[in-house]
C-alpha cells in the first residue's frame, strides 16, 4: 500500500538529542559537515568516528537506521573510491597493470574519501532521525529569518514546506484511488515497453494535477478565511527555547572544533 508511509525518517524517542533545539541542531550539523573537510589524517577520522559513535549512543536511535541511509549510496561510495584509487598518484607503486597503477597515496586517499562520505551521511541523517519535520521547518524558518531583510522569503519557504508535508499523504491517497479507478476501466500499468509504461502514467497524472490545483485553490481560501496574511505580525504557539541541554551541546561542539583545528595544525 502506498498510502501508509511515514514522512521523513523521524525515529521517536526521548533522548537529549531529540530535545535539542532544532536551530542548534541544524547549525551543528552544518558545521560538522564543514569539519569533515578539514581533516587530513587517519587519527582525525578516528576522532570523528569516536565522537559520532558517542552521539549515536546518546540519541538512542538504533545503528541500523543510520545504515539504511547508506545503503542507497553504496554505489556512489564505491565509485568515488575506485576513481580515487586509480587517479591519485604518489608514494610507492603497489600494482601496475596495462596503463593503470595503484599507489599507496591513492589507496589512502580513497579510504579517506569513502570515510568522509559515510560520516557525512550518518551525521546528517542523525538530524532527520531525531527531529520532527515540523520542528525542522520551524528551525529553518528561524535561521533564515535574518536573511528576510535581503529579500529571502523565510516564512513563505517554511509555509510551503509545511503544506507540502501536510498534503503528501492526501495526494498519495488520491493517486491510489486514481490508479484503482483507471485499472477498473482496464488500464494496464505493468506490461509493455518502457515507452508504453510512461504513456500509461498520463491518465494518472492529469487527474492528479487537476485535483491538486483544485485543492490548492480551496486551501488558499480556507487559509485566508482564517486570517492568514503572510508572515507579518504572526506569533507561534510553540516558542523555540534554548535550554541548558543546548548550551551543553554547544560547548561540547566547540571542544570538538578545537580538537579538529588543533589536529589540522599539528598533524
Amino acid at each position, binding site marked *: 500500500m502506498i498510502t501508509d508511509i511515514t514522512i521523513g525518517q523521524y525515529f521517536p524517542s526521548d533522548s537529549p538529542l531529540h530535545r535539542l533545539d532544532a536551530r542548534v541542531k541544524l547549525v551543528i550539523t552544518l558545521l560538522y559537515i564543514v569539519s569533515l573537510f578539514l581533516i587530513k589524517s587517519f587519527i582525525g577520522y578516528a576522532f570523528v568516528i569516536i565522537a559520532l559513535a558517542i552521539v549515536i549512543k546518546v540519541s538512542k536511535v538504533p545503528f541500523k537506521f543510520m545504515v539504511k541511509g547508506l545503503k542507497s549510496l553504496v554505489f556512489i561510495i564505491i565509485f568515488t573510491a575506485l576513481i580515487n584509487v586509480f587517479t591519485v598518484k604518489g608514494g610507492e607503486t603497489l600494482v601496475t597493470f596495462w596503463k593503470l597503477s595503484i599507489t599507496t597515496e591513492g589507496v589512502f586517499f580513497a579510504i579517506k574519501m569513502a570515510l568522509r562520505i559515510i560520516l557525512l551521511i550518518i551525521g546528517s541523517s542523525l538530524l532527520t532521525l531525531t527531529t520532527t519535520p515540523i520542528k525542522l521547518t520551524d528551525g529553518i524558518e528561524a535561521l533564515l529569518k535574518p536573511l528576510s531583510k535581503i529579500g529571502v522569503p523565510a516564512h513563505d519557504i517554511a509555509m510551503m514546506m509545511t503544506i507540502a508535508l501536510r498534503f503528501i499523504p*492526501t495526494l498519495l491517497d488520491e493517486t491510489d484511488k486514481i490508479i484503482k479507478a483507471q485499472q477498473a476501466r482496464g488500464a494496464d500499468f505493468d506490461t509493455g515497453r518502457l515507452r508504453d509504461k510512461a504513456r500509461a502514467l498520463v491518465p494518472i497524472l492529469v487527474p492528479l494535477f487537476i485535483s491538486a490545483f483544485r485543492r490548492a485553490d480551496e486551501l488558499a*481560501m480556507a487559509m485566508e478565511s482564517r486570517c492568514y496574511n503572510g508572515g507579518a505580525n*504572526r506569533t507561534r*504557539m510553540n516558542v523555540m527555547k534554548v535550554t541548558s541541554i543546548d548550551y551543553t551541546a554547544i560547548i561540547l561542539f566547540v571542544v570538538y572544533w578545537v580538537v579538529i583545528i588543533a589536529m589540522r595544525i599539528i598533524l
Partner: protein
Amino acid sequence: MKIVRAENVSYEYTKVVEIQGENVERKLMALDNINIDIEEGSFIAVLGHNGSGKSTFAKHINALITPSSGTVWVDGYDTKDDEQVWNIRQSAGMVFQNPDNQLVATIVEEDIAFGPENLGVEPAEIRKRVDSALQMVGMDGYQKNEPSKLSGGQKQRIAIAGILAMQPKCIVFDEPTAMLDPAGRKDVMETAHRLNKENGITIILITHYMDEAATADKVYVIDDGKIVLSGVPKEVFSQVDKMKGFGLDVPQVTETAYNLRKLGIDIPKDILTVDEMVGAICRLKSNI
C-alpha cells in the same frame, strides 16, 4: 443585535461562454438583491440546490468576496472596508465542505493554532485556546494526532476547533457534511448545535440536506440568486409544492404527511420529525 445584515446584495460575474464557435462574455447574477438579517445567537439554515448561489452568499459573510452592489455588514463592519477584513474574518469564521482542503498543519494542535497565530495572540493564550477548542468539539486528547489519520467527521470537527480558537461570534458552515458518512454527519451537526446552545455562537448553515435545515431556528431558501422562501422550518417545509418547484426535497415525513393529506386524511401539514408523525397518527387513530 444583528450579527449579519445584507441589504440589497447582488453579485455579478462574467463567464466566457462559447456560442456558435465564438467566445462571448456573459454577465451572470449569482446573487440578485438579497436582504437578510441574522440575529446574534440564532441558528439559521440557507437552503438551495447546486448553483443556486448559496455558497456565494456564504463567502460574502467572510469577506472572501464583496458584493457588486448593496452592502453586507458583519458584526457592524462593512465587508467592503479593506481595513476591517481581519476583524470580519475573526468575528465570522467559516467551515468548508472538504475537510482535507482546509487543514494546514501536519499535527492537530498546530492546525488549530493556525488562526490565533495569524491574529498575533500570545503563545500561552494560544495553548489555552487550542485545548479548550478541542474540548468544545469533543476531540480532547487528539492534540498530537495527524489529521490525515483521522476520519472525515473528526477532521471536520478539527476544522471547527480551528475556527473556535479564533473566538468568533458567528460560524458559517458551507455544506460541512456533504463529504461525510452518516456518523460523521451526526457528529458535526451535534457539535454545531451544541456551540449554538452552550456558547451562544451564531450558526449559519449552508446545506442541501433538508433534515439538517429542519433543526434551524429560521430557514432561507435561495433559488437562482434570490431568496424565494423564508421563515421557521415548519412554515417553509409545509409548502411542499413550492419546495419541489425549486428543485428541493422536504423531509421524508413532511412529504408523507403531504401525500396523506392529498388522500383526504386529516393530518397536520407541518410535520418535520418522525416523533411528530407518530404523535399525529396516534391522535388520528384515537379519533376513529
